[in-house]
Every structure is written in C-alpha cells, then in structure tokens.
C-alpha cells in the first residue's frame, strides 16, 4: 500500500515495487523506515519490554532500600528520583507503548484492513519514543539529578528540580505527541479500514476498547501538555499559574493534572479489558457473554473517567459539596466495572475450559484486578480516604490494577498472539512457570502493602519506623521473585521468535476472528483484498 504514495518515498528509494507479496527489506533500514503495521507493532512491543526492565530495575532498587529501616542502598534524593522515574518509565514507556504495539499488530488483522490508515505517521509516532526516553533517562545524570517530585509533578516541589527540569518537560511533550499520533491513527484505522460487513457492533472487543481509549488519549494528552507547559512558564518566565504569591494556586495544577490523570488510568486498563474479553471466550470455548453490555460498560467507564478526577485530591481541602460530588461519581464507576467482571465470569460459566498460559494470566487478571477494584471502592469513600490518602494502601491499590491488571493482560496477549505473530508455539511449560512465579511474586510484593498503608506508612519515604519492618521485608522478597521471573518471559519470547514447534493458522481450538484466518506467521501485507465478514 505504501506504493500508492508519492515517488519521493525514501523508504523504498528508487525501487517502486508494485508486487504486494514481497517481504520486508533487510537490515536496519527495514526498522527505521518501516511503515508496516506489523513491524511497527513489533518495535513498540520490544521497546516496551525494554522499558519494563528499565523501570523494573528502578523498582528493585526502591524495594532493596526499603528492605530494612535506615538508609542502606540509595540516599533520599536518589530514592525520590527513582520513584519518579519508575512511574514515568512504566506508565509512558512500558504499559502505554505495549498496548499501542498490540493495537498496531492486531487492529488491522482483526477488522480485515490492509494496514494502519496513516502508516508514515505510525512510523513517526514510534520513533519519537526512543528519543523521548533517552532524554528522560539522561536527566538522571544532569546537575541536580533527575526529577524527584513524583510523577505527578506537583508544584511548588517540582519547581525545585535542577537542570533536568526543562528536559523532563520536553520528554513529556514528546511522549504526548507520540501518544496523540498513535491515537489518531487508531481512530482513523478503525473508522475507515474495516472490511465490508464488519459493522461497529461486530468488531472484536479489543478493537472497541481501543477505539474508546484512543478518544480518551486525544482528549487528555493535550491537557497534560498544557499543565506541564504552565509549569515551564512558572519556572522560567515568571508566570504564577501555580504560585499563590503571584495570585495563582498550586491546587489548580492538581485539578488540571488529574483531569488528565484519571482518564489516563483508564487508558491503561480499557485495552486490557479488551484483551481479556478476547482470551476468555477462546479458552472457555464459548461466546463472550453480553457483548453489547461490554461495549456500553466501556463507554460508560470512559465517560465517568472525566468527572471523578478530584478523588485523587480529597485531602486538599475542597468544599464539602465538591467532596460529595466526586465521592458519588467515583462510586458509580463500580457499576460498569462490575458488569465487566460478571460478564467474564458468565462467559466461563458452563464453558469447556482449558488453562494454557494466556488463560491463566486472564483468570489471574480477573481476580487480582477485582481485588484492586475493591480497594478502589474503599478509596472512593472520602472520609476513609482521609486515612488512606498517600499511604501504602494507595500504592497497593494502583499496583494491583496496574501490574496483575494491565501488565498481566499484556503478558496474556503476548502468549495468546505470539504463535500467530511468529508462526511458532511458545514453550508452554516455561510459560506456566512464568505465570506461577509472577502470580506468587506479585501478591507477596503488593498484598502486604495494604497492611502497611492501613497501619500508617506514608508512600514515597526512603526510611520508615520499626513497626513496618516485617511487611516491607516480605514485600521486597516478593519484588525480587516477581522481577527476576520476568527474565523467563523475555527468554520465552526470544526463544519463540527464533524457532519452535510450528503453529497452526487457528492456533487455539476455540479461537474466532479474522486474525486466525491468516497464516501463522501472517504475510507481510495482509488483507490487501478485503475479506468478507458475514
């Protein structure tokens, strides 16, 4: 399809090959100039895996410092830099690109489209990322160190950042631009490139959840860009957006940030809902229960995500009416989220289940995400939140929804579609080892943090009072089990890419959908002739 473009397409130099069956060009230029959705999907996924290990290493330093009271491994300044960077790298570098990578690989194959609608922009949106993260990570070595005010960048604290400050802002702008372009591309693809007969209400749920997520991204990434730009002008151009001394308000930053930040939470979980809604029916050998209500629940969650932001700031001293509004609105999210969980369980009900690695991760997702949902409901109660706010209870909550939530869904997706992508079956035994070690590790890591938070341990502290010692030790042990078992995942993925038992086209007995009608691995260009969808 790129051959339809103007003649100065440097990806193809002077070689205008109109034969669609050709393979990819060889060597490094294939990856740098590629406009192929499969190649770009692979790049996104591998980049995200790399960032997962970078962010994970930071987390292990944090947990090592917290193994016992006192300062042992890092100093408090570096500790704060590590917590800040860990969050930025994991959110913007690991989870979001992984879902964009899945979208790139899967959406065209699922809707019967030839590629993404805007292939050159696709290339650009990926290749911004390595530069953005090189810039972000380089700030750790700048005078004054990296950003240490938390990923939420609250002023006035964040304005105390050293020379790294403008570089961090620029890196965030670059990530935002990349996300917005990715989102535009996904919307354009889904709305324009569906095969005849693929009506909106026939689309696989992964496509639906991504369509809604992409709209969330377009709505809120510019809000983040605005917020960080105001920080920049406050720091360098004497504005006072967030400075009370000049008539501004530090709390206004929090309102703007969380207007971005709460939909951002759903940006990281809605595609996960999509993945799980694809995997459970396959391994239950039964159609998804309540397809339409899944779509409506996703849309409701997306809408509600715009009117609940201030539940992140119950303790800033909002008026009573504000607290009540945000408390009620937040509680409402439990309803559509509950519908999703009930639908997944009803899909399993009276199915004929098997428990290959993707299904194991999907089941663990449903259970552990629900536990994160329960603590979320507790956090929604404003008076109780006055106790929970900014403690390890919150840390436990959002890690439950992000790690055995979003990250487990990404792993489930990787195992589920890897045979399709590579043409080889992954090592099932190794996959099961990875699953059990991860699941045990993640619970030993995060479950005790609930107790720590309730007992009074604030988050983001490098050192703690003696009564918190035992649970911190346990948590650190879990962190190392979880962290190192991810090496099994990386090894399994690399092994599968390099070879293995040939996968069939359908791969899984119960799999349905257009991507399973293609060969494994699929040809470089697929659905150049639109398939017929009944």
């Amino acid at each position: 399809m790129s051959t339809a473009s103007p003649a100065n397409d440097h990806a193809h130099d002077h070689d205008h090959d109109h034969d669609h069956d050709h393979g990819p060009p060889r060597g490094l230029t294939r990856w740098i100039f590629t406009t192929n959705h499969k190649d770009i999907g692979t790049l996104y996924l591998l980049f995200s895996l790399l960032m997962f290990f970078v962010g994970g290493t930071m987390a292990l330093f944090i947990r090592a410092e917290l193994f016992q009271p006192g300062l042992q491994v890092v100093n408090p300044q570096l500790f704060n830099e590590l917590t800040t960077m860990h969050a930025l790298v994991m959110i913007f570098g690991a989870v979001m690109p992984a879902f964009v990578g899945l979208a790139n690989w899967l959406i065209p194959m699922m809707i019967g489209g030839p590629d993404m609608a805007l292939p050159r922009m696709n290339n650009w949106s990926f290749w911004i990322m390595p530069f953005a993260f090189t810039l972000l990570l380089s700030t750790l070595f700048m005078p004054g160190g990296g950003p240490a005010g938390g990923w939420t960048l609250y002023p006035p604290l964040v304005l105390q950042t050293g020379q790294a400050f403008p570089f961090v802002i620029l890196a965030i702008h670059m990530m935002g631009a990349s996300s917005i372009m990715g989102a535009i591309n996904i919307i354009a693809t889904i709305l324009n490139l569906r095969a005849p007969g693929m009506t909106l209400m026939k689309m696989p749920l992964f496509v639906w959840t991504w369509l809604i997520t992409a709209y969330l991204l377009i709505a809120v990434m510019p809000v983040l860009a605005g917020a960080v730009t105001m920080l920049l002008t406050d720091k360098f151009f004497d504005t006072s957006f967030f400075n009370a001394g000049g008539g501004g308000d530090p709390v206004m930053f929090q309102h703007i940030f969380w207007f971005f930040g709460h939909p951002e939470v759903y940006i990281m979980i809605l595609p996960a809902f999509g993945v799980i809604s694809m995997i459970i029916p396959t391994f239950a050998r039964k159609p998804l229960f309540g397809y339409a209500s899944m779509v409506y629940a996703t849309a409701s969650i997306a809408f509600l995500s715009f009117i609940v932001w201030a539940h992140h700031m119950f303790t800033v001293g909002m008026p009573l009416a504000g607290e009540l509004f945000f408390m009620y609105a937040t509680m409402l999210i439990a309803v559509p989220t509950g519908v999703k969980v009930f639908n997944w369980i009803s899909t399993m009900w009276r199915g004929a289940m098997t428990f290959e690695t993707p299904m194991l991760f999907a089941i663990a997702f449903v259970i552990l995400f629900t536990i994160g949902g329960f603590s979320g409901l507790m956090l929604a109660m404003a008076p109780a939140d006055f106790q929970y706010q900014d403690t390890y209870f919150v840390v436990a909550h959002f890690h439950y929804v992000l790690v055995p939530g979003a990250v487990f869904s990404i792993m489930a997706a990787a195992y589920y579609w890897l045979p399709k992508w590579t043409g080889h079956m992954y090592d099932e035994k190794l996959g099961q080892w990875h699953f059990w070690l991860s699941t045990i590790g993640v619970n030993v890591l995060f479950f005790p943090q609930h107790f720590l938070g309730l007992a009074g341990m604030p988050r983001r502290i490098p050192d703690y009072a003696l009564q918190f010692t035992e649970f911190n030790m346990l948590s650190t042990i879990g962190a190392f089990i979880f962290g190192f078992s991810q090496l099994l995942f990386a090894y399994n993925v690399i092994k599968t890419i390099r070879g293995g038992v040939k996968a069939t086209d359908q791969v899984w007995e119960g799999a349905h959908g257009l991507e399973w009608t293609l060969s494994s691995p699929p040809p470089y260009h697929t659905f150049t002739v639109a398939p017929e969808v009944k």
Partner: protein
Amino acid sequence: MGISRFAKCSGTILASAFVWAWSTGAQAELGLNMPRGVTSVSREVYDLHMLIFWICVAIGVVVFGVMFWSIFHHRKSLGVVPAQFHESTFVEIVWTVIPMLILIGMAVPATKTLVKMYDARDAELTVKVTGYQWRWQYDYLDQEIKFFSVLSTPSAQIRNVATKGEHYLLEVDNPLVVPVGKKVRILTTAADVIHSWWVPELGWKKDAIPGFINESWTLIEQPGIYRGQCAELCGKDHGYMPIVVKAVPEAEFKEWLAQMKSKNQPTPQTVTNGSNPQIAAGGKTL
C-alpha cells in the same frame, strides 16, 4: 502433571507466607489494620472502613466462589460440552441494580461522617500548623506560643551506626500539646511546598498548601502520645518530618501554656530558613 503439582505446592507456600505474616504481625503488635483512634470521628472512619471492607469481602466470596466453582467443574478435561448462551437481559439488569443499591448503602454513612468532619464550629482552641522543608511549626493563635517541631532521632540511627530506638523516625523535640476533651481547630498551611499533616489516631490528614489555609478539627478523648508523619512528598527529607501530638488533661495543659509563655517572652521568634509564614498564610481561605 508437574505443573499442577507445582501450582498446588506454590499455593501452599503463598498461603503459609500470609499466615506467617499475619502471626508475626500479631506477635509484634504490628498494625494490620487502620487504628480505631482516639476521637469519635476516627472511630466513625474506622467503622466506615470496616463496613466497606466486609462488603467487599462478601462480594468477593460470592464472585470468586462462582468463578472457582466454574473453573473446577467446567473444564474440557472433564468432557463437558460448552454451552452457547451469550446474553440475558434479565440477569444483566439484576447485576446492575444490586451494586447500585449496595453503593447507596455505603454512601449514606460516608456522607454523614463527612459532614461531621467538615463542621469545625465552636472550637475552644486554634492551632495553626505550618509545614516547612522539613519540620512543622505550631502556632497557638491567641496564646502567643509558636515553636518548631523537628525530628529528634539521631542521624547515627538513620545511618545504621547506632541501634534504632523504639520510636525511630516518629519522635520530635517539641510535640504539639493539646488538652483532652476540648474541640481543637487545626489550620494547616505551608511555607514552601505542599505537605500533609497526618496523625492516624485522629482519623484524618489534611494537606498543608502554601498560600492557603485548610481547616480541620479534632477532639481527643484520651490522654496519650499520638504519632504521625508528613504524608505528601515534600522533597529529600519527606520521610523525616514526623508529627507527635501529646494530649494532656486540661490542668496540665494550662500549666504547659504558662510555662511556654514565660519561656517564650524574652526572645522573639526567629524563622531560620528565611520564609515568612505570615505572608505565606495570607492568601484566601479554602
């Protein structure tokens, strides 16, 4: 198969890890749960917390129970033929309506407690709390008593060259002293960055925001020493600005006031880091 044996075995390890954690926790009087606290508000918050907790447990037992029943009985290896049903408007309405009713049941007590927590009228004593990097200043308005409260744990303990004391990181030179049985209004603000004043036994925390004053209140019922920490990341020494509240009987409090006044009279208060809390606190009230 080896894997399922491993799964069972690791499940046992996980379960025993939690039991171990629970039992060591109980032995060392470790907190596993939110403290009930020493005020009527903190007890209401605790009750609310436990109410939601048990509701979540009940929902979890039902939902996960159904799920595990299905996992054990609806397996391909048992030779079951999968059903093909995929919707039921009736059950979908049921499981939308029931959660709504549960939520309303939770919202009512939450609203009541919140309204109570926001009613700071008729306080008998007002203390202004100002957060600094990295210490607290307590200003007894109308009493002309103002002092800083700084971490008193020796740095040797933090650097692991001395044995850590019982109240490691939760001890200060000058605690906040308040009378028991009196409603105390606490105004929080900050001089540099945002801090958050939190004593778990009082049942709440409130952010200390430069340029703004937040109002809270407490009425401590039992004399005692209650410890807390700054809860909002405020820079390098965020972990080292604890809060200690000493609640004393009325008579002892009066004595303490007199003592502080005589001590404070000759030397004017000096603010050592150059920030001026008066200006910082001069903005509008939230």
